[in-house]
């Protein structure tokens, strides 16, 4: 408490009323402006196209900010009104004390001492006035504390809003140390990606770091957020998952085989991020596999090879881990490639290899873009964002490699991921084996911004005609090695080789435009090996450079 009785006597509740009038006016202003935007939004419903989408997104961000500000102003208004009522009661009490003191010949000094003006022993009136002064002082201190707490609560009601047009009011507040910024939580109750993105756009830059640290689970999975945001959020989730899964592994460490296992295990064992397994051993194996996936992901991200990496997808809530790691900077690259692998792929067993292939592909594409394409940086994403069929899945299982269920489920994750990539980039999806089915199904769902689709060793793209992909046939590129037993099966829709008008690319030994000799790729899993014609061709598609067609000499170099 820094005030004395002299200051207390000058406290006035009506002065607080000026602040209340200002906050009430602010709430009205925001409400009126919000109504105008809502009305204009309804009028502009017929306006379509990219500019319209951007305008509506901007409108959503503005109204989110207005909503945050309105909540804060309302909270401040309520704090001031409560304080004004308490202050009025306090000033009434002080008036009564002064009247009693006057009537009994008592003087209250500026420090709160009660002095009798006449001579004589202390009277009972003096004792009462002293007690009343002490009570009033305590009430004033309480009022000050309550208002202080209410103001801090009002500050935390919503994120601070900064805008260049405001003249830096908040910045002055920060500098004065009086404002304590705190970000408003992201939308709850299963928000859509658009709602989270609108919230993120409304967040002042100085709060972004705190927001990522505070809500990584709400930000990491959101398609459409900048890659750097997802990367930082997902790395936090990765570290937490490692701790959680290590604990879970220790908890589930099974005893030696016993009668329960022989009889079919203990039913209904639930684990963190794991569905109920048939036995504790199955749950243990699943958690262990996820822990290995997390550790593999960490090793891939921690490589010191001069290539920046971004963790775009991280999810250990399903039956297996799902991860996507970009080599390069997705936010700034001109050419983006997303490589989707297939049968038997797991994060723990396949991410390191997929990352190596992505790194080699990015390096080669960057070189080809510089030499024969239009230039520009390249980022390649190793996308292991779905539960690919595994050897352990029986043919009757819904995860079976002979069924398209896994590819359909994968497409449901891949399509929004592709839609969330930065706009105005050249995007290529490269699908290998069963991954090409997943990729084909995702692209066929439309709106993915994919410019080129590359199918390598493909058992089918899940479509019967090239038109179903929604791409010009010349932008669908097919590579098949002659001795690949999977390519040409045509198991999922038509054989890509036979789709009308598609671009058939060479996998044979060829002389490259730079004079080097590229070797033929062999079998089902050699397409992206460095030094092969197939890898060169895939890199050329990614870079927007000329390719080497199948069974024909290069058209022009």
């Amino acid at each position, binding site marked *: 408490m820094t005030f004395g009785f002299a200051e207390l006597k000058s*406290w006035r509740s009506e*002065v607080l009323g*000026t602040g209340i009038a200002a*906050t009430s006016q602010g709430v009205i202003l925001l409400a009126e402006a919000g109504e105008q935007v809502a009305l204009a939004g309804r009028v502009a419903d017929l306006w379509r196209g990219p500019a319209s989408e951007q305008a509506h997104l901007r409108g959503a961000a*503005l109204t989110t900010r207005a909503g945050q500000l309105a909540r804060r102003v309302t909270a401040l208004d309520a704090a001031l009104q409560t304080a004004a009522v308490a202050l009025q009661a306090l000033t009434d009490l002080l008036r009564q004390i002064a009247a009693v003191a006057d009537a009994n010949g008592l003087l209250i000094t500026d420090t709160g001492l009660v002095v009798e003006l006449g001579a004589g022993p202390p009277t009972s009136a003096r004792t009462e006035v002293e007690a009343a002064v002490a009570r009033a002082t305590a009430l004033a201190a309480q009022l000050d504390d309550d208002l*202080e707490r209410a103001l801090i609560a009002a500050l935390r009601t919503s994120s601070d809003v900064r805008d260049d047009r405001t003249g830096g009011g908040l910045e002055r507040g920060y500098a004065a140390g009086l404002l304590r910024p705190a970000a408003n939580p992201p939308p709850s109750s299963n928000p859509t990606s658009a709602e989270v993105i609108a919230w993120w756009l409304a967040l002042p830059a100085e709060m972004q770091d705190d927001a990522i640290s505070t809500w990584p689970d709400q930000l990491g999975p959101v398609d459409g957020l900048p890659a750097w945001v997802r990367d930082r959020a997902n790395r936090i989730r990765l570290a937490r998952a490692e701790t959680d899964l290590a604990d879970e592994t220790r908890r589930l460490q099974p005893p030696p085989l016993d009668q329960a296992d022989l009889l079919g295990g203990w039913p209904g064992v639930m684990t963190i991020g794991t569905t109920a397994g048939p036995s504790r051993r199955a749950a243990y194996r699943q958690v262990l596999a996820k822990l290995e996936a997390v550790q593999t992901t960490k090793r891939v991200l921690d490589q010191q090879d001069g290539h920046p990496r971004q963790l775009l997808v991280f999810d250990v809530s399903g039956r297996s881990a799902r991860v996507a790691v970009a080599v390069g900077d997705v936010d700034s690259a001109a050419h983006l490639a997303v490589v989707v692998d297939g049968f038997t792929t797991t994060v723990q067993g396949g991410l390191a290899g997929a990352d190596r292939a992505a790194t080699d592909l990015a390096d080669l594409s960057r070189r080809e873009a510089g030499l024969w394409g239009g230039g520009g940086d390249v980022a390649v994403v190793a996308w292991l964002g779905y539960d690919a069929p595994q050897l352990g899945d029986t043919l009757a299982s819904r995860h079976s490699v002979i069924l398209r269920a896994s590819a359909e489920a994968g497409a449901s994750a891949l399509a929004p991921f592709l839609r969330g990539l930065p706009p105005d980039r050249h995007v290529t999806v490269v699908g290998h084996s069963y991954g090409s089915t997943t990729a084909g199904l995702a692209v066929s769902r439309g709106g993915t911004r994919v410019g080129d689709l590359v199918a390598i060793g493909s058992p089918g793209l899940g479509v019967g005609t090239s038109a179903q992909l929604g791409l010009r046939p010349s932008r669908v590129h097919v590579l098949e090695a002659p001795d690949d037993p999977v390519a040409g099966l045509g198991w999922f829709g038509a054989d890509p080789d036979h789709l009308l008008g598609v671009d058939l690319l060479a996998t044979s030994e060829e002389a490259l435009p730079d004079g080097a000799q590229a070797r033929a790729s062999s079998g089902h899993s050699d397409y992206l090996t460095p030094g092969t014609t197939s890898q060169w061709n895939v890199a050329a598609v990614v870079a927007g450079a000329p390719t080497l067609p199948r069974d024909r000499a290069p058209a022009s170099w």
Partner: protein
Amino acid sequence: MAVAAAMPGSRSAPRAALLVEVLQQEAGSLSVGLAAHAADLASASQNYAEAEAWATSLTHGGCLPDVVTAGSAP
């Protein structure tokens, strides 16, 4: 900063005064931004409707093939 004078010597009143000033300023500028956005939306919507009507009239007059729409009109 009038609010600061309501409770001289207190800790809370200066803070309340600053908050009132800052938030009032923010509300004013944001409401201006919102109003400008609403006007932009209305104007863009009007332009779009006019362009669409123009493209339609050209198509019906035989000046352009049917595939031309407002989005692709020159």
